[in-house]
């Protein structure tokens, strides 16, 4: 090594105060670098705080600065100088530089993981909070928008007698709820056996579902389950989450068009499917509601058995699209039937009377009002 303490090199020094170039003599001593111009000492730099913007390699031009004077620059062409400095400031070497890059890359990966984690948590927990603080008007207008895209050209069933019967059923089974007015039940002439709970307390049942039920208790049971989803704000949560995902995508892809999320969300309605956990909660609500209002679970059991016969009990596979998220994502029908059968019996009365049931079944078929029986609104049949 030619790094005796007395060894000096010629260099250029910029002090960071002015652009003037100082033709300096640089001494590479054991503890510090001393930069001087004639008798003037321009800088005394410790090795530990030296900075080289680019990694320093032995035998190449050195370009250095120092923590104490970040704008000062020392340029030494003499190849011996970089060797001398590298001996005493190994942090400037290519190897140290690579190590730092490695650390940086690991740091970046950690940050990426943290971002992914935050996004995951945000999408898991935040939507339910947002859904629960959303004002009722927003929820209702959201629900109406969803209905529009959901039912398309299918018509709303408005047989007057059927509507009366439906209202009687709604009143009966929501009688014990905190806010019975929030549930609004609409029957649409959809092509499939289905029922949805939508934002704003809107519950849509298909006419086919009413046809498929062997009695009013089956419909009432489905209604009670959907009311469970309403109470839990499940559909609002799903929609907020879907919007959040599209928002996140747009933010990640760099600003861009943030709007038209609603159009996208409407498309996402096909994905209006809940977690099994949400379904079990809705089922628990349904049981509680039926028990509180004295409605037989047998009708619902029969309805489930009918669905099972007709469509099989494949609860997880999507059934070529013939069915409907009501059953495809719900806990297995066998499991649900088993749970209902295991319940202790409770005192019950028919949810609506036989005449009302006949009326309800014809709610979609009679565009023209047929024999309008003056069925009193809330026949608590007995």
């Amino acid at each position, binding site marked *: 090594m030619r790094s005796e303490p007395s060894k000096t090199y010629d260099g250029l020094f910029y002090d960071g105060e*002015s*652009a003037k170039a100082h033709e300096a003599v640089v001494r590479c001593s054991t503890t510090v670098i001393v930069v001087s111009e004639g008798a003037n000492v321009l800088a005394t730099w410790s090795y530990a705080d030296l900075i080289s*913007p680019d990694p320093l390699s032995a035998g190449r031009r050195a370009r250095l600065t120092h923590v104490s004077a970040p*704008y000062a620059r020392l340029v030494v062409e003499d190849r011996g100088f970089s060797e001398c400095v590298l001996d005493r400031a190994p942090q400037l070497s290519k190897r140290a530089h690579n190590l730092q890059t490695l650390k940086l*890359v690991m740091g970046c990966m950690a940050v990426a993981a943290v971002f992914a984690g935050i996004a995951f948590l945000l999408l898991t927990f935040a939507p339910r909070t947002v859904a629960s603080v959303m004002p009722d008007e*927003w929820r209702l207008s*959201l629900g109406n928008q969803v209905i529009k895209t959901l039912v398309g050209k299918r018509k709303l069933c408005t047989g007057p007698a059927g509507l009366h019967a439906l209202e009687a059923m709604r009143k009966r089974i929501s009688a014990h709820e905190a806010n019975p007015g929030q549930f609004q039940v609409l029957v649409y002439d959809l092509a499939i056996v289905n029922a949805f709970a939508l934002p704003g307390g809107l519950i849509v049942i298909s006419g086919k579902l009413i046809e498929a039920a062997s009695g009013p208790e089956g419909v009432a049971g489905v209604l009670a389950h959907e009311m469970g989803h309403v109470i839990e704000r499940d559909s609002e949560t799903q929609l907020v989450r879907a919007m959040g995902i599209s928002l996140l995508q747009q933010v990640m892809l760099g600003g861009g068009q943030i709007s038209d999320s*609603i159009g996208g969300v409407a498309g996402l309605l096909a994905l209006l499917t809940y977690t099994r956990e949400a379904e079990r909660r809705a089922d628990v609500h349904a049981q509680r509601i039926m028990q509180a209002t004295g409605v037989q679970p047998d009708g619902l059991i029969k309805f489930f058995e009918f669905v099972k016969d007709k469509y099989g009990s494949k609860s997880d596979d999507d059934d070529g699209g013939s069915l409907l998220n009501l059953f495809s994502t719900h806990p297995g029908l066998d499991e649900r039937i088993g749970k209902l059968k295991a319940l202790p019996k409770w005192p019950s009365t028919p949810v609506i009377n036989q005449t009302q049931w006949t009326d309800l079944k014809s709610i979609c078929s009679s565009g023209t009002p047929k024999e309008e029986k003056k069925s009193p609104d809330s026949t608590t049949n007995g």
Partner: protein
Amino acid sequence: MTNISDATTPTGVPGGPQPVSLEYVPQPGLGGLAIKNFLLTVITLGIYSFWGKTNVRRHLWSCIHLMDEPLEYTGTGKELFLGMLIVSLIIVVPLAALQFAIGIMFPGDLVAEAVAQGLVLVVLIYLIGVGIYRARRYRLSRTVWRGIRGTLSGSPWAYAWSNFWMTFTLPLSLLWTYPWVRTRLNSRITNEMEFGTRPFAFSGGAGPLYTRFAVLWIGGIITLVLMYVALSLAGLGAVIEIMLTDPEGLEGTNAYFLIGLLFIVFLVVIPFISLLMAMFRAVYVSGEMNYFAACTSYDSVQFKMNATTGSLIGLVVGNFFIVLFTLGIAMPFAQQRLIRYVCNRMTLTGVLNVDAIQQSQAQLDRRGEGLAEAFDIDAF
């Protein structure tokens, strides 16, 4: 009198005015850097890109030699990263949330959506001005030559306001205010540029730009008409072909004819028209580059640029294909070509009293150019 000037003159090497020169001195290592950046950006899900970009800038800056002394880029990836992060938090997220809320409040309401989009657009146009200014200031303050850095002395908000209202004159004047807007904004930002404690100066009006702008404007109209005619003819050709072979539908259509038509449209017509447009643009842009340089001075150094329409088309088309065919991996080479182009065609005349340049006292931006990044303002 002589005493006073003696006392203020720095001691040591006698300074005095020196002739200025600008040169691009290529250095090896850019290819390796490009590949390394690409790989590390992929494995860090994009986060490394800020450091990668910084390394490229450091390389390119160090190739620019001013009076035989290289420029140095002193920005850091961390600054760029934090800049982006903060812009996301205080601007992108609130704007997104606004649209989100409106989507929930007035679902399907086209008027509300249009109002919301208009509002966001207005805010964005204003912020783009802030972004341009801050990015320029950040880069100037991170550009060091002989230990001295640059800055912009004005306010980003004031600049953004000018940029904002001038932008609205463009549609109102059918773009004819464009050269004026460019000159005013460029004049403003150049006059606020400083290196060390000394300002750059820009003097000149938009008048000389209007001849070339007229070429661009008329050329633009011609291109649009050509595009329209070509696409209509292609569409017509397709319809006639379908009608002749099978009025009932596509069944018996000569598929080769339609495919050939598509090929001609996409591989001949559209590239030809794009090239035509690029040519008209280059006529204007090269003139603007030369004129702006001629208007610019620093101390007694006068800038002069020799951009030509042909060479500019070569630069732009070459860069387009470099980026396209490498999916952006070779972006640093496109940037290098641009910087080299400017350095090779820029001449600095006059002498500079280098020793008298003192360090800038302006405060440093703590973070990088998040806004410019968010709007993807330029190539660097």
